[in-house]
């Protein structure tokens, strides 16, 4: 695991979008794994700076990272949920009680539940990087 601070990129993550709940001021990019380490649509947990992150490579090629902790139960399991879509937006369902979250910003799409933290991601060469 390598980690490099790239101040000039802060706040404008390349792909897939702006994270909702990460303070750009303190982020730095961390290489986590290679694209080929991940199976499309099969989430995996990753350790980023000691923090558990759920990492998803979708069959569309998009890469998302959200908090691994399930806000409802406190268990660190989000990577083991089912990836899907709701009205065209990519989602992840908690494997425990099945609340659905938007992958792009971690918003809970089932009622007023608390959302997941989402982290900016990008692919550099074949490296997947997460800002945290």
């Amino acid at each position: 695991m390598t980690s490099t601070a790239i101040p000039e990129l802060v706040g404008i993550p390349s792909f897939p979008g702006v994270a909702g709940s990460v303070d750009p001021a303190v982020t730095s990019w961390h290489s986590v794994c290679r694209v080929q380490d991940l199976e499309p649509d099969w989430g995996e947990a990753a350790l980023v700076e000691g923090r558990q992150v759920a990492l998803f490579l979708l069959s569309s090629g998009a890469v998302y990272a959200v908090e691994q902790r399930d806000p409802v139960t406190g268990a660190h399991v989000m990577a083991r949920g089912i990836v899907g879509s709701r009205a065209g937006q990519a989602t992840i369902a908690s494997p425990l009680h099945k609340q659905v979250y938007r992958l792009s910003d971690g918003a809970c799409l089932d009622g007023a539940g608390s959302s997941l933290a989402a982290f900016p991601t990008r692919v550099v060469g074949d490296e997947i990087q997460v800002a945290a």
Partner: protein
Amino acid sequence: MSVRSTPEGTLAGTPAGTRRIVVVGGGPAAHRFVEAMAARGLDGRSLTVLSEENYLPYDRVNLGKALTGHADLTLGDPSFWADERVSLRLGSRAVRLDLDARTVHTRDGAEHPYDELVLATGSDAAPLPFPGAASAHVYRTLDDVHGLKRALTLLSRSLGRKPHVVVIGGGLLGIEAAAGALELGAESSVVNRSGWLMNAQLDEGAGQALGRLIAGQGFAVHTGTAPSAVLTDDDGAVTGVELADGRVLPADLVVAAVGIRPRDELARRANEDALAGGGAAPFSVGPRGGVVISEDCSTGVPRVWAVGEVASFGGECVGLVAPANAMAEVVADRLHGGSAAFPGFDTATKLKLSGVDVASFGDAFAATPGALEIVYADPARGVYQKVVTTDDARTLLGGIFVGDAAPYQGLRPLLGRELPAEPGAFLTAAGGGSAPETELPDDAVLCSCNNVTAGAIRDAVGGCGACEGSAPVQELGELKGCTRAGTQCGSCVPMLKKLLEKELTTAGVTVSKALCEHFALSRQELFDAIRVLQLTSFEEVLHRYGSGAGCDICKPTVANILASQNSAYVLDAGRGTLQDTNDRALANMQKDGSYSVVPRIPGGEITPEKLAVIASVAQQYGLYTKITGGQRIDLFGARLEQLPEIWKILIDAGMESGQAYGKSLRTVKSCVGSTWCRYGVQDSVSMAIRLELRYRGLRSPHKLKLGVSGCARECAEARGKDVGVIATADGWNLYVGGNGGATPSHAQLLAQGLDDETLIRYIDRYFMYYIRTADRLQRTARWQEELDGGLEQVRRVVLEDSLGIAAELEDAMARHVDSYEDEWAATLKDPERLRRFRAFVNAPDTADDSIVHVSEREQIRPATDPERVLLGATIPVRGTEGDLR
């Protein structure tokens, strides 16, 4: 709790000012009365029920099920009797009423004072009016049924052949008893004095048609001859039945079903007591017996009411449960200050004999002046349909249906109303079409047993607020629970289903069976499409039938269908991404994200050596161990990356995945069976193991459980399983559609006396039929209830192959059996597959330190939130010493 069978004193301890209500009798009428009282409120009241029988009130209507199977007929939820204001005294027979002192005396010498008294003593079987009557059995109570069964078993044993059973009386009960005896392996025949069967409900044409149908059932019918004696030998054993024309029918056992006699002896005795004391008789007794009541169900004796079969109204006592329920409701209402009135008898009847469709209702004999009878009869086919109307052919007065009673359901609620079409349109057997759609008025009674109107059903569908949560009802099961419609005799269920569907459609409620936003198809439609087109991946299925990227509903459903149809390893080729939480890890995720591991223990049989291996794995990985309800061992607290190591040890010791994580076969529970048990009649363990090894790995709409009991004591609780197998001396009895859980249901008898091969063939067909046609996450109980035609349809498909698909279903099962592979063995074989069990993609072997366990009763458990705070989440999960792991 106040269910007692011991004699007790008077209602000592009842708070002063409490109104003491005493009910004599513990049958369906008494039960309904107590329920109706409880529903209206018991404040300031105490209820004492004196019941002579030693059972909780049970459903006599379904006594036939106890005769041919092991049905639990208890009415309502037994915990109902736990209310401290209700005291049910079983085995307590009332012998005398003291109307002046207002007390009831019971045989054990106790005295029960009452403020209100309800007589619900029912009736008993009328004795045969000729010599030998004492040697005949009757068919009225559970004890009668047990006696009959015992006698038949002893007879077959001592005679070494099928016993001959002659039933005297060709009414509803006689036919039912004869059919039951036949099912129990006897030769059975019915003798009826009248020229045709069910002459109280059917006219001659209908009776002849019924005779045809009955002959096809395999028992003999002798009509138009009066029996004159039951013959016995010197030892008192029955040898035959003598007929008035001199013939003698050989018989080893005789059942009398010649009518019922109201149990009005308490009223008669009170009358005698009064007359002896020089007073006037307080009760009036009906022309054919029974305690006379008026519209409010009062007897004319202050504070004394009568309900059910003992009550005589308009000169009649009627042996049906619907009026008994209606009367019980009337008295409960009156005792709460209401003014309900008994509307008169609804005498509609439907024979509950499988394969014989008979219904009669209203003015079946066209006794109304000027009544018209519109009839279709085809004696050769055994079909008879008749609609009775007023002289203008517009208002429905009654009808009779034999052989094809389909129109009965729709017509019955229209009794006394204008027909929506000309009467001939309802004689469906003539035209081959189906009866006209009928729009039921709100006040039309749909379920007469529980007096539920079409309006009440509509209210429930609309969300009337009568039930908890007041959510609109959308399923048959809910509807039954909420309105009680269809819960007694069940004959209105098809009608109920139809009305429910219609109401949901008009309410715009999506009765759509669409799986989710990505698929407009139902599970069954998807299953068929995937099968016919031989699709093998979610992408193909989505491409053809769906949209979007799928979700946690459609993905596992498609994964499950794919797994049911071809047994490829479930996590390969992108299928892993479709799997639900547990399937994904081939283990059961617990609340803290750790997993439990369950090796298969077929039939619950395990060697000490394997037990030792399980124990050592548990010790080595610090797992919490618990015995499951399915007779195996669950090991809790394993982390994702530990699963392969754990399984390696288990598999090396000869074990395999128990698939506790799958919507698939779980366990086959068994008792120890004839090998060890002194009661067992068959080897239940061997059969359980055989079944478990056959169906292991079978993915299905929901989990599947089986049970095999070695005798009728049913120690394996097989009837609480999707498939229950119970041994009898004549072979296996097969029950289907049971489950425990939130809405428990007892499995229903599908077939009996089966040999091993037939048993397995039937289970093959049953499971595959279920897998093909059930909804997502629909268990077998719900499935067979919602299936068009219900259990009868299951019987036709599985036993009679009515759809011609039996061979296909068996082939599908054979393919499953041949291609079964242990998923964990398959996982360990392939390093690519093992990658799915790493802890972190960038730190495969680092333990997840968010999983924190503490010790309780010498084992681990997940730490609670406060404990986690106290311990910090950095404490190593797998330590070597101390309490924290």
